[in-house]
Structure formats: structure tokens, C-alpha cells
């Protein structure tokens, strides 16, 4: 959910763009972190843990904890809490440690 009215802050937002999340088209604001755009759309599960496959969400929001690592445009382990959203990005939930050239490894 986005904050529409705030007593102190105004939010300078980039233009509306669409991107793909696991094949579904979603709208976000250009330049905001991918994970923020997913959150605004109500999506909280960003990855699954490597061994026990437990769902993982946003934890630190500063690119430290790897909880938000996702595949973006085919590249695994992208820290979506800091990676800016661009139009047409292909974003996927990550379920393993990340395999380069992942189409053969997922």
C-alpha cells in the first residue's frame, strides 16, 4: 500500500512503469527499489530459503541481509531492496542459491 497523504513528507515518485513478477504484469514507479514496488502491490514473499524452502521477505532494506534476493532479467541474487525498478524488468522469486544462466539450473 502506498502512503497517499503524510503530515511531514512528500514523495517524489518516478513515472509509472510496468514490470513482470513471475509472469504477471505489475505497476510500479520507476527508480524505486523493486521490493518497494512489490510491497506496494501487496507482494511480500521475495525468495525461498535455500534448504528448508521457507518464504523470505524484506528484512533490512539496505542491501545487507540477502533476504530479498531475486532473479531480475535472468540474473540471480539481485538485492531487490536497493535495485531500482526499470520498465519491463522480469522479476522472479528465487528458490535456490542462484545459478548463473539459471534457465538450466532452476
Amino acid at each position: 500500500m502506498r502512503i497517499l497523504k503524510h503530515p511531514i513528507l512528500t514523495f517524489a515518485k518516478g513515472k509509472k512503469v510496468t514490470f513482470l513478477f513471475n509472469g504477471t504484469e505489475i505497476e510500479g514507479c520507476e527508480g524505486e527499489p523493486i521490493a518497494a514496488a512489490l510491497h506496494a502491490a501487496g507482494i511480500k514473499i521475495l525468495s525461498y530459503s535455500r534448504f528448508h524452502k521457507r518464504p523470505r521477505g524484506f528484512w533490512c532494506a539496505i542491501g545487507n541481509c540477502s533476504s530479498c534476493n531475486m532473479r531480475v532479467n535472468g540474473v540471480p541474487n539481485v538485492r531487490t531492496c536497493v535495485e531500482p525498478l526499470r520498465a519491463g524488468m522480469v522479476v522472479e522469486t528465487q528458490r535456490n542459491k542462484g545459478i548463473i544462466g539459471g534457465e538450466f539450473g532452476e
Partner: protein
Amino acid sequence: MVNKIEILVIGSGPAGLKASLGAAAQGAKVTLVERDPFLGGQLVKQTHMFFGSKEQYASERGFKIAEKLSREVEDHPKIRVLCNTAVLGCYENGVIALETKEKVVAIQPQAIILATGAQENTLMFPNCDLPGIYGAGAVQTLMNVYGVVPGCRVAMVGAGNIGVIVSYQLLQAGVGVPAIIEALPHIGAYHVHASKVRRMGVPIYTSHTVLAAHGDECLEGITFAEIDKDRQPVAGSEKELKVDVLCIAVGLTPLIEILFQAGCKMAFIPELGGHVPLRSDTLETSVSNIFVAGDASGIEEASAAMVEGSIAGLTAALNLGYGKESYQENLAAARRELAGLRSGPAGEKIRSGLARLARSEEVTY
């Protein structure tokens, strides 16, 4: 090829910004690296007003201070700013590898000021990893920088300054906060912050802790309970709360990996948040010309981080031969500010931590 530079400042939060300005004002050439796309570190999400004196930007909001200092840094002819640039490691002979513009670059600074800040602590309980459980700083970032709320109802763990301030900011953003849960028998936050949330009807449960989180794929609720003086749950005091967000504000740990790599002598000081470097009273570590400032030197708050940054910046510049004439006067002024910030009951923890550090020996690994 290794690029030789004068002073490298790592991190552009309050400490790094002030360190850069302090060193550059003496005439030293500074390279400031920041892994985020913008300057300001965690100041950019702080909407509350600062305390202290005019020098410490009292009555100004954190994000306004960040804007002001960032502009000064960007406009300074002696400071080169590299955003989107991460330090990858520290190698022999003080060579630092940076990742910038998708390239790895090696630089060799004459002095380094580490102002990397801290990361949030976690708390262990069943299901503590469910999506919907966040660090308080993460909620602050999501909400105050990107304008997105984490959910509808938030339980906060921790009644220190961060827990209480973020609770207030959640209320400002229109999010419900049905409980603040604190393991200590008292509220750690400054009174002025705690009374604001109490006036808005948020109950603060002291001597309580989270026993478990519930939910299938995402957080749906928590069980919390009173704890006795041995921190054991009191039977029969369990309470259930339906929340979609649990926010953890149980302290921070300094980010000091680079200092370990550089071979700085370190000690574990609980009052300062974890491993911190042994250092002189001008914040120079055991490796000459490597300085530390801000939360990386021990968890404190932004005002003190700024003053520490100034001290480290001035002294690094002095070591390179800049600003000899004004050094003592500038240092004395900064020391007075720092002593003022650390006086009184709020400074008790940091004072005892620094005293313990001064007595401690290196912990070797």
C-alpha cells in the same frame, strides 16, 4: 593499476559526510564512496527533529540535515563523490577494491575513514523468519523514503528510541500500532518520544517478549508474554495479537568487516553493540591512518556520529600535513560537543562502553 588518493571516506551517513567536510575544509582531497545511489545514509529516513545545540542541527529533521550536508559535500571542490560504489575489500599495503559503474577499481588511499554504520539485530523465536517481520530501520526506509507502508497492523518489539520513533512514524502514516513490546522493565527511549506514542493510545508492554510468530506463508499474528527477572515467560500471561507486521527494534551491530581485514585490533564491547576497533581519542585505529567514526565505532546516535566524523576528518587531514594551524582549536571544540552529547543519564551506556574499551585488550581470532 592502483590509483593513489589522499583520503578515502567509506559511507556517507552523518559520520561520513562530516568526516569528508572536516578533512576537505583543511585542504585535503577526499574521495567519498557510498554504495547507495544517494548520500545521507540512514539520515534520509529520519523525520523526527534532532536535539542538542545549534551546531548539532537541533530542531531540524534528519532528512533535512542529510539534504543540507549532501549539498555541501557535492559542491565542495576538494571532495569527489562516488555513489553506487561498494567497497569490496581491503588488501595488502592498504589497497582498497571498489565496485563502481560495474567495474572493479583498485585504489590506495593515504588515509581511510570508515563510516559504514551498523546493521540491525535480529531476535530468535519460532517463525521469526516469516515475511512480514522486518527490522525497524527497514520499515522506516520503506515508509519514509519510498512512501510504502509495510501493512495494516504493526506490533513493535523494542521501546528504545528507534522502536518508539518508528511506532510514531507508523501512526503518522496511518498504520495501526496495537502494542510495543519491551523485554526490559523500563522504557529505554527518551521521554519526549515515548509520551507521544502513549498519548496516541499505544500500550507499551515492559517486561514482555515475543514467544512465537504465526502464519502460513506470511505473518498473521504473534503470541507474546510477560517475562520474569530471569527473562523466563510467566505462565498464564500469554497474549495473542493479530498483526500482519512485526517490527524488530532490538539494537544494532557495528559494520566493521573492513577493519578486521585491515588488521585493526578489535574488542567485543556489548555496550557499543559488538566488535569495535581499539582507537586513540582522535578515532585512529591501531593501524595508522585508518580511522573509524559513527555507529561503526560503537552504536550511538546521529549527532555524536557527526562530531566523531569531524574529529576523524580533521585528524586524517592533519596526518597528511593539512590544517596544522587550526587543528587544536577545532579538535577542542569538537571534543566539547561530544562531551555534551554524552553527558547525563542518556550517555551512560556509551560512557561505560568507551571506558570498558579503553581498559580492554585486543581480542584475537
